[in-house]
Every structure is written in C-alpha cells, then in structure tokens.
C-alpha cells in the first residue's frame, strides 16, 4: 500500500511537472553561427488583407465539389526578415478557420494566404500564423476586419 501510494504520488508529481513543461519549444535558444530560428515566431510579422474580385472566375475544388469563385480574401503576412521555406507549411488561422493555400512573394519576406470561401473569415476573429503544428512558431497578428480589407480587382 505504502509503495503504491508513493508511486501514485510520484506519478502525480510527474504529471504536474509534465504539464508545466512547455512542449512548444517556447524557450529561446542561444544564438549560434548560421543558426536558423525556425522554432520561433516570425519576426516583425504584419498582416494586410485584400478582398480580390476576380475578373475571370476561378474554379476551386471544395469538399470534393467544384465551385466557381469570384472573390477571394488574400492575407499578406510580411516579415522583417526572409520567411524560411521549410518542411512544415505556414498556416494562417482566422478564428477557427485554417487557411493552407499560400504563395511566396518575390521578396521572400511575404507569404500570401488565399481563402476562397470568404464567408469562413469571421469579422473580428483573431488571426495568427504558424508552421505546421509547431506551436512555438505561433505568430499573433491583427484581428481580421472585413471593413479594413483593401478592395482589389484582378
């Protein structure tokens, strides 16, 4: 009994400690020569949003169905440094909506995320970008405001 109690206590301590451990690589690492900071938020990241009206409708496949799209929302995330191309894809979250379609701009510091189902972007939703499921890279951005989105035609 005593032993079991000790074990349970040890387990409890362990669980507490384990839950306290940051599994998201949040602790900054010491700089090293040619060290790439892949595990951290994108430095100096800023978000601008554009509502792009398409002169030629685009056909997209959503949930196995083809659909004509006349407007897309483009979320431009710009960093003060080149955004590394790496194994894990950058992902933009607008509230609970996950935007995975992206392209790099030629400056290498801008990633543009495209959302074709624009209704999924809730006005006022918090946004952030991260790489894959790597929580340590989560980079908070401005809240999404449909009103502030620039209108474009392409």
């Amino acid at each position, binding site marked *: 009994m005593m032993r079991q109690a000790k074990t349970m206590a040890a387990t409890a301590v362990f669980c507490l400690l384990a839950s306290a451990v940051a599994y998201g*690589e949040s602790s900054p*690492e010491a700089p090293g020569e040619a*060290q*790439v900071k*892949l595990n951290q938020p994108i430095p100096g990241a800023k978000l601008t949003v554009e509502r792009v009206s398409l002169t030629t409708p685009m056909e997209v496949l959503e949930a196995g169905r083809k659909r004509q799209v006349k407007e897309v929302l483009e979320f431009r995330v710009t960093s003060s440094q080149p955004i590394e*191309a790496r*194994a894990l894809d950058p992902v933009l979250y607008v509230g609970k909506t996950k935007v995975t379609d992206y392209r790099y701009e030629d400056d*290498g510091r801008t990633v543009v995320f495209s959302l074709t189902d624009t209704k999924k972007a809730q006005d006022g939703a918090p946004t952030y970008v991260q790489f894959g499921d790597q929580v340590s890279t989560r980079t908070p951005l401005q809240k999404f405001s449909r009103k502030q989105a620039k209108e474009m035609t392409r």
Partner: protein
Amino acid sequence: MWSWNRLCLLVMCLAMVCWLPPSVAAQPDDVTERFDGQAFRWERIPAPAPAASLLDLGHHYRVRLAEEGKATEVQLPVKAPAIGAMDLSTLRWGRLDPETKQYEILDVPVVLSGKGTSVRLAQSGDYSLFGLPAEPLGKAVIGRVCDIEGRPTPAQIEPICTRIYCAGFKEIGPIGVSGDPGIPGMPPRPGPGGGDICERCMNRGGRLPEAIAECHLTKGIDVGIVLPPLFPLPVCQVSPASLADPSEPGNYPVASAEYKFVDAINIPPNDPNTDVWATVRYPGAAAGPDAAIAPGTAKFPLVLYLHGNHGTVISGSSHVCGGSGPPVPNHDGYNYVLDRLASLGFIAVSINANDLNCKADRIPERGKLILEHLRRWKNWNDPGQPDADFGGRFYNRVDLSRIGLAGHSRGGEAVLSAYLENKSAGLGFGIKALHSIAPVDFHGLILEDVPYYVLLPAADGDVSGLSGARIYDRAAPRANPNKMPKMQSHVYGANHNWFNTVWFQDEGSPPGGTPGRLTQPQQQAVERVMAVAFFRQFLQGFTAARGLFTGTAAVASLAPAEIYRSYQDPAHLNVDDFEDLPANVALNSLGGGNAGVSLSPFGEFSFTQGSAFNPSFFQQTKGLIAGWNAAGDQFTLAIPASKKDVSAYRYLSFRITQVFDNGAVNPVGQDQDLDVGLEDELGNKIFLRVGTYDRIPFPYQRPSLIKSMLQTVRLGLVCFSCRTLVGVHTKAIAKIHFRFNRKAAGLVGIDSIQFTR
C-alpha cells in the same frame, strides 16, 4: 485437457514399468558400492591399460552375469564429469578381451538416463565406458551441463525429467574446452533465483564454443538427447561486433553527369512547368564528368534521392523563395552519398525539385516527379529508344528491377508517395527499398511490402515532431505485418538540415556547438554509412552490414553519433503490440494473460500526440506504460501453449523508452535498466540484464519538445541458455518476464514484444 507435464509423466511411468527390467530400476546410484543383483553382480575395478584412440571416461566395471550367454540389460550408475564433456552420440561400452587385452567396442548404443547408462550384455567380463572422439579432442569436447538457474524444485522436476538428460545430469559440472580461460574448473553454482547468467557468460569472453543440448520433450520413452551440429554454434552476442565501413569507396571510378529539361512536364493540378533536373553519379570507365560507363554488361541498380522544401533562390547568404538570383542547387546536397554508391556499383541520381518548393504540400507532386525521372531512365536503358541525351551510354546498364528511393524532409514522404503510386497505377518500376531522412508525414501513407529505413534526427528544429516515427509505426501494419522489414535510426544530436550539404544553416535544437550536437561531417557520416548499407543490402544482397540496423554490429566511422535503433523483421511472432480494442492490458496479442506486480501506472496508452500518457510522445502506436519504485515489481506475459514453440526465432525483441517526466521518476541524464526473463513450461527461468546488451537512454535533451521515443532491444534466445548451455526450452516457452529490479524507480513505455529472426 492434457498438459505437457501430465503427458510426459504418463510416458515416464510407462517407461519405468514396460521398458526397464525391474532389477535395473532398483540399481543404486553410488558406484562405490557393491551390488549383488538377481541376475548379475558388478564391481568397480581399477582402470585397465589405456586404449589408444579411445577416450577413457574412467568407468570400468567387472560384471558377472548369472547365466552366461543370456543377454541381460544392465544399468550401470555413472556419475562422471567427463560425460558432460562428450558428444554423447559417441559413447560406447567396450569389453576387454581377456586374451588380446584389447577392447572391443560393443555394438550397442549407450542409453543414458537419469540413473546411469544401460547396456545389453551377454557375457561376464570387464567393461569400460568410452567416448569415441570423432574429431580431435579440442573440438569434440563440449561443455554441457543442465544446471538451470531458477529451475524447479526436485520434487517438481523429478517425475518429469527422470529420464531426461537435463535432469539426469544436473549434478555434473561443466567441463570446458581445453584452453578455455573462462572455465578454470568447476565454476560456482549461482544462487537460486538470482544472479545474472549472461554476465558470467560475458566474463568468459563472450565465447560459447559449446553446442546446446536440448531436452527432447516430445518422444515419450525415447526422451534423450538432441544434439545439434557442433559447429557453427549459436553465440550469445553481448556487444555489437565491429564492422568495416560498408560505405568505403568501392572499385568503380565515379563518373558524373547532369540532365536538365526545363519546364518539361506538367504535374497537375498546379505545377504545369516543372523542370526535370538531376545530377547523376555512376560507375565509370574513368572518373569525371560524362565518362563512359564501366565496361562490361553488368546492370547497375538505380538509387534516386529527392530533397525537401527549401529556398530556391540564393540571395546573399540566404536561400529564399522568389526574386532573382542563382538557383539553390538543392539536389547537389547528397553527392557525398551518391559518390560512394556509384563507386560500389550503383547509378545514383539526385533530383532537383525547386519548382515544387516554396509551395504548400506538393508531396504527391514530388512523387510524380520521381516517377517521371524513372520513366526517363527506363528509356535511357532501352536500346530501342533513341537517346539524344546520353547517346546510349546507359543502354542495358540500368537494372530497373532494383530501384531504391531516398528522400529528405518532404522528399522523405514523397518517396512513399512514388512507391505507392507506382504500385497502384501498375507502372512496373521495381522499387525495392525506401529510405527517408527526417520526413514529414502530411498524408499518413502506409507501407506494407517494401523494406523501409527512416533516419530521425533528434535535434531536428524543423520537423521537430519527428514525424518519421509515425511512418515507421504505421509500416507493416497489424493486419499485414510480415511482408517487410522496417528500420529506424534515432540519431542524438543531429539536426534537420545538415544531411544536405547545401542546407548549411543549423536549425538544430539546442544550437550547434552545444555538447552532444553532431557536426555537419558527423551527421553526413551517419547518412552515408547507413544509407549505403541499406541500399547495398536490399539492392545488391550485401547483408554483412545488416547488424547496423539490428544492433549486432557497429562501424567506427559512425562515432561519435549515438544512434538508437528500431527494427522489425518480417519474420516475427507478435506477443503483444498493446493495440487491443478496447484497451485491455491483462490480455496480450497471443491471447495469453498479462500481469503486473506492484506497477503503477500500469496500462495501455496511446503514444500519439494529443492523446498520449503525457505530451512527450510523438509516435503513432499504443503501448504499455509501467512505473515502479521497488525491487520485485514485474510485468509478465503468458504465452499460450499453442504458441509455445519459438525455436524458429532467434531473438526476443521489444521496444522500450524512458518516459520523459522531467526527472520526477527517471533521473535526468541516466540510463534505465531492468531484467528480462524467459520461463519455460518446466519452470526453468533465466533472466538477462538489458543493460548488459543495450542501453535504455534518457531522452534526447533539447530545450523543449523532449520526446519519449521507443527503440528496439533484441536479446538473443541463445543468451537465455548461456551459462549452463541448457537453458530455457525454446520449444516450450511459457512466460516472458520484465523484472524492474535494476533501478530503484522508473517509468517506461514498452511496445512490440516479439519473438523474431
């Protein structure tokens, strides 16, 4: 239901009643006593003159038969260490001819039993027990004794084993081979239930020149001795054997070429203008660019490498996406492997996939790009196809039935995609081996029938979840587990980038230069040695380096890398994979019962992120979590009788990891250790200390994302009989024990308990 023991007991009784003469059964054991039987009498006599060419075992008797000429079977009690040293098939009784003073060998076999030896005699006279060494004594003599640590009490064993060699000679001490420094005489017997048999074995230099004698358990009254061939002998290997580097340059001069077809293919849906671009190394008539291929008609296996997602444009000291500047030669980063492969008789290719970089996913597209390269190699091999690219250089020299694919990062998953599409679309390329370096796992692909080797860099700062571990876990799935070997190297201190020489930046965690981190050349040595060993094994049939994957071999050039392996052989018996639905820790995969003694926690858990025992697990399997804090805590798996014969296998294998608990139970930085035991139906039980054979290391320490990562430990079945040579009966295994007695406390994850080749 008749148990084996009861059946054997019955057989024994029949034997005693029907086969042995009553007088014989009553013989005393002690040879120093005189005995007057009803039909004969005998007495021990001094040794007669030595007989040339016969091994005098020192048993000489004068037998007086009551009626000359009437054959009588007598049993003479024998206790002699020398018998334990003999090949028993050579034992004969010899009769001294009173006239010639020479021994004639009686043409009757010596029957050994627990009480002595029997022989049918027809004349009174002097008899001696001889061995007939068929070979020089140094080879023929084997040490053999049946003194099994942890054996049952005599009361339990006698009724069963009276006539079994093991029991009958349990009092005989082992006799060593002449010159064996490990057996200076009669070694002390170990205490019951304790000790570490194989450590003693190791003290003998790990050398076991002896054959294994097994009790024959199935032949009723003929129970006797089964003698396997004396040589070669199974060896209990305690530490890895040193091996020559399998990636040392071979004899072929390394020739090189490059091909680049700009915007050559359309990969739907979104990559219409993709280059077909690669660098090639091949066995040449001479070294250098575009040299002729090596003379002869030999066809060379083909290996293709594919890099992962990375910047495509060189901008200052950075590799970026977009803009103007020279392209990043991402594909040139594996030439250090390609060169070695070519020198050893491979055509080795590395593909550039810049057109698929800096874009989301593109795993299927990368797979299609690989297949496009294979299509072109098929044409370049075909003399019926015009070849404006190489002028027929590779006609009939590419063995498209022996193709290996290797990929790094996204390329590491793309090789799976290519393999599966080749299979599903019936393209017919003979892809026989897949290798991934730090792969992503975007699509959850499952391999079922191709040798797979994945390298996981523990300091990976990019694929920091080590997704390749999930690919390994899913491969050879439960429903179809016996069609492929799978191998994994978990390399402490290695980062994601440095397996590619072009990806010079260190994203590793902790940063480079920290103790325990490997340098770029050290990382590349790991990839070079392991990848070359892998492809040589599965494309060229070179099996000498197989031990690098199973743990029986080591190569000096891998140092100082700490590599923890996982390996699953296609030939295995799954004792427990802990995948029960619903979870039932009390039942193993064979249907036997599991029991934990004083373990807490003790249960089946997912080892997958999000639903695991704790957040340190990044795998895709279920396993046992067991914690202990006192000696005597145990986990035992019962083997059903229908599965008890594991003699076709060579190892007891299991996966194990320390559970990272931030030092709460497992001390930071220290190895764990425990004993693993096998128990047979007779109750013979032998434990091995895992730490003698392998390590259960503390998880790789990085600033965060510390992982509990399973590794495979394989214990040779021969080791479970190593000190006394007659160990647990592998034809009748009843239980597997995990005895947590080497450390005061601990918390481990265990999975994939198997008997295996």
